[in-house]
């Protein structure tokens, strides 16, 4: 397969970026999108051009590092996949593919397609944890009964890999899906309920400080989320934040 690749090139955070066009040929339809970029980069190195910088790590869809905005969609046209799980067979031979970094004020570009998603880490630091001792004499794991549907819902929320596709996709660059998934995975379980009010207040405060946009409930985030995180989480966070704001001192 042959493709024309329009890719965003930007030398550094403060530099002005722009689209550069390259051709790649002899791409197998079994290749992942990242492998196609690898081929492109080998070609660029031979031509003495700086290779395209992009984030990647596990290449099996669980780390959340690969972060490309492909043909106007986070992680490209596939559903429930990260960029490393997107295969070239999803495209037609001869296609022109536009690749951009995830764009948000809170995700500044480091170089080319690589962005700094440290804002997500700071949201987690603001409250995405439970303050319980995890060493010493611990109670038996089954001593606290947890309803099956709560356990399942908490697990579903916890499958968020923090890739930032929700922010990249959202027309407002809102981090509501990410933050609400992290709030939910803890507040649904007994250990997380203790700090639930404080957690939601602090995490939302940090989310606002980072400069993310607001939620218009378009639902685009849940469509593009590689882990299928539902906007039910956003409603849960809206509920928790409302009651925490009213009751907190």
């Amino acid at each position, binding site marked *: 397969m042959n493709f024309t690749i*329009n890719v*965003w090139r930007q030398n550094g955070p403060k530099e002005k*970026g722009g*689209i550069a066009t390259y051709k790649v040929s002899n791409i197998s339809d079994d290749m992942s999108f990242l492998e196609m970029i690898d081929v492109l980069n080998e070609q660029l190195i031979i031509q003495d051009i700086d290779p395209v910088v992009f984030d990647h790590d596990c290449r099996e869809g669980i780390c959340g590092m690969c972060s490309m*905005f492909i*043909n*106007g*969609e986070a992680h490209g*046209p596939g559903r429930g996949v990260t960029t490393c799980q997107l295969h070239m067979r999803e495209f037609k031979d001869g296609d022109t593919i*536009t690749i*951009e970094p995830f*764009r*948000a*004020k*809170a995700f500044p570009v480091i170089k080319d397609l690589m962005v700094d998603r440290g804002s997500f880490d700071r949201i987690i630091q603001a409250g995405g944890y439970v303050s319980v001792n995890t060493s010493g004499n611990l109670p038996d794991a089954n001593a606290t009964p947890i309803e099956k549907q709560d356990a399942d819902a908490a697990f579903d929320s916890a499958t968020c890999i923090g890739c930032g596709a929700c922010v990249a*996709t959202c*027309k*407002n*660059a*809102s981090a509501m899906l990410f933050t609400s998934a992290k709030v939910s995975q803890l507040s649904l379980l007994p250990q997380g309920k203790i700090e639930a009010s404080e957690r939601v*207040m602090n995490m*939302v*405060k940090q*989310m*606002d400080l980072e*400069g*993310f*946009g*607001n*939620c*218009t*409930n*378009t*639902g*685009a985030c849940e*469509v*593009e989320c590689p882990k299928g995180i539902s*906007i*039910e989480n*956003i*409603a*849960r*966070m*809206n*509920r*928790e*934040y*409302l009651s*925490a*704001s*009213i*009751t*907190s*001192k």
Partner: protein
Amino acid sequence: MNLSGGLIRSSLARKYWMALTGLFLCSFLVVHLIGNLPLLTGNKEMFNSYAHFMTTFPLIKIVSYLLYISILLHSVDGLLLARSNKAARETRYVKYNGKANASWSSRNMAILGTLTLVFLIIHMKSFWYEMHFGNIPTYMSGDGDELKDLYSITVAAFQQPWYAVFYVISMMGLGFHLWHGVSSSFQTLGINHAKYTPIIEMLGKAFSVIISIAFASIPVYLLLS
């Protein structure tokens, strides 16, 4: 109660206010529509006494101030939200496939809202302002009340084709705004449930269609009759 951060200034609070004022404005649409039905039946007396009642009854006066505040809050809050949403993405995407994952109306709430606001200003100038501060001819009703003849003003206004067309377009804008807005406000207030959300979404869409078509039918009917 955490007012400064929690219920006023935070991003979530701004959305709560949007949802609450939006839902209140929806309830007004229903009342307004019912009050305007005499325009379709040609019942001049009923329409004028309704207009008289709405501008003079004390309880309605209180509610009307709540309505003005809601319109202002919904507009100003909406503008502030749109501005901060724009600021959250400084560099635009070269290619952005919005229709791949979200409905057209949900992606255009700000523009649809602005269109509705422009309509509202013109609409209030034409009728609300005239009713309150203009010189509308009066007559004595059968009950002995001195009534302003808003009915004749309204009928005359809608018999101008450009005015009727402007109304129909504006009602389509309002319809699309409500198509997403009604159910979205429930989600914002935290009401999302596997059993009830599909019903809320369906009712919200039905509401938007009924309200916009019913309101648009008034100028169309008056223009054609």
